[in-house]
């Protein structure tokens, strides 16, 4: 057998799996998004509707725009907070930083937990009757004693953000530790001798050299934040009202709960668009790094 043929044969199984689990569902979802697509109406999955579903989402559904807004706020907050905390921890934990390996091991624990489990634990911890955090806050900051965290729209979103940030810090920290390790030590030492303070060494020398890794981290986390579902589902189920309803949750609700598969497929495709941009940017950064 020619090497050329063999090489394609060898990747064929993987291609088939990707096609069956990713490409085909995407195509099928695109088709469904142009149909009436009601689960409780036989034949409606083939009933062509044109751009009606998309127009409906854009012009007739405040709940859609609400979930877009929630997702945007959620993404900006989680990406920002996680990156900042992770960078701080990475600086402490990197070789030559102030904390070392035992702390690194401990750190990875939250990332080992499934997002659904994180959701459940946080729901318990913020339970007004017997929640651990609820009690803590009550003692530490008395004015917060009577706050029902998950019943208040803004606070509920804050709790969801907190749970996500907590769960993602470890992974981003590890990636950034790797990034910091690749910043040449003598550039940092040169800056110290040149007269730069700790902050200026970080700002002028470390950060610019860390930028490619930081970009990858931010893009990657944005992708994950945009599609957050399980934590929201377990922690607040989108509530109170629709205060924490992310796009993924909105799609799930319309498709599975209300049976509007056609409509939810169209919203799902609307979500694919920013994802494509982010994934493209991600690939570009990752491969640019490999080039050097």
């Amino acid at each position, binding site marked *: 057998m020619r090497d050329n043929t063999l090489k394609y044969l060898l990747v064929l199984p993987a291609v088939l799996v990707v096609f069956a689990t990713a490409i085909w569902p995407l195509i099928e979802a695109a088709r469904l998004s142009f149909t009436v697509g009601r689960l409780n109406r036989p034949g409606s999955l083939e009933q062509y509707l044109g751009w009606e579903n998309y127009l409906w989402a854009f012009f007739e559904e405040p709940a859609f725009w609400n979930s877009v807004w929630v997702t945007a706020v959620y993404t900006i907050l989680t990406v920002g907070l996680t990156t900042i905390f992770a960078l701080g921890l990475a600086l402490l934990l990197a070789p030559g930083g102030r904390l070392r390996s035992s702390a690194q091991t401990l750190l990875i624990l939250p990332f080992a937990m499934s997002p659904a489990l994180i959701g459940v634990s946080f729901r318990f911890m913020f339970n007004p009757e017997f929640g651990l955090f609820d009690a803590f806050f009550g003692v530490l900051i008395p004015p917060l004693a009577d706050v029902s965290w998950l019943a208040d729209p803004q606070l509920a979103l804050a709790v969801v953000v907190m749970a996500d940030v907590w769960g993602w810090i470890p992974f981003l920290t590890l990636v950034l530790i790797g990034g910091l390790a690749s910043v*040449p030590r*003598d*550039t940092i*030492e*040169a*800056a*110290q*001798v*040149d*007269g*730069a*303070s700790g902050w*200026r060494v970080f700002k*002028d*020398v470390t950060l*610019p*050299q860390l930028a490619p890794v930081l970009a990858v981290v931010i893009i990657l986390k944005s992708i994950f934040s945009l599609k957050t579902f399980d934590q929201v589902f377990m922690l607040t189920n989108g509530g109170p009202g629709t205060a924490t309803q992310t796009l993924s949750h909105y799609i799930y609700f319309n498709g599975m709960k209300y049976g509007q598969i056609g409509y939810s497929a169209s919203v799902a495709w609307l979500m694919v668009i920013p994802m494509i941009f982010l994934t493209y940017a991600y690939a570009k950064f990752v491969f640019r790094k490999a080039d050097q």
Partner: protein
Amino acid sequence: MAEIKLNNLTKRWGDFIGVDNQSLHVQDREFLVLLGPSGCGKTTTMRMIAGLEDPTAGEIWIGDRMVNDDLPKDRDVAMVFQNYGLYPHMTIFDNIAYPLRVRGTDKSEIKPRVEKAAEQVELTEFLHRKPKALSGGQRQRVALARAIVRTPKVFLMDEPLSNLDAKLRVTMRAELKHLSRALQITTVYVTHDQIEAMTLADRVAVMKNGIIQQLGTPDDIYNDPANLFVAGFIGSPAMNLINGSVTDGMFVTTGGTRLVPVNSPDRAKAILGVRADDMHVHEQGQGDIDVTIYAFENTGESTLLTVQWGQQRVIARGDRHLRKDQDEVVGISLNQDHLYLFDPETEDRIRM
């Protein structure tokens, strides 16, 4: 301008001793070279002066200030790193300007000073480029320019030429020497290359195992080595070290040849040191001893004869026009004014 004083400086990592209770006084405007094999503590010593490494014990003085507790930025030193340590994301101009900027130099002053430094190292046409677009030698010049752009109390140079190819190294060595003479700033220079040490230094400190073995002018350490280590480390080819004993005022090789008179009481074991240049080559029978040529090498400027001498091989330097061949027999005589005797146990020099 400042002198550097190290008082009983020690650096330990656990059980490993990097620098062992070392004192050193570098004079104002002196060019001092720390020379030694890798792991001898020379770089550690320099890094402690720069403040990049904390000493375990001892004091570091720069000028009239003890700087042990000062951060690197407050010590007013400039350093050139082995891998240059250039900022890859900045242009050459910004690289050179960085020490001025972080020290709050007036903006109008930065440009002329960077340009002057760049001119001194012949980099003027590359100022807008990034370090990646420069060759190794040019990067080395940028690192130098960044050090000389302001007038620090002390220059520290950590094997600055070791990443350059052999030819460039010779050129840069001369440029460095020229520059340092012009600038007249106290300099500590770390290298494992004895030629660099000999050519650049006012004084050389030869280090081994965290201890300075000998501190002296290049002449001193070449012509008057304090011990076996310095004798063997300095000089190319390395000094011939011949095992034997001293009997009745004669040095006798292990093989039993009564070689040369030495001014020393009898001792059962001794090592005779003699440089290749102090072993004269004659026709067979005309020297002190006849030996067989093991290898004959013509380097162009001279010839090197490795000769079999009992169980040992020694190297003699011959005239550049000398032509001999392997297995030929030649006579060898020793220049008796330049012989060194060492104690094999303590490795100390036995003064004659």
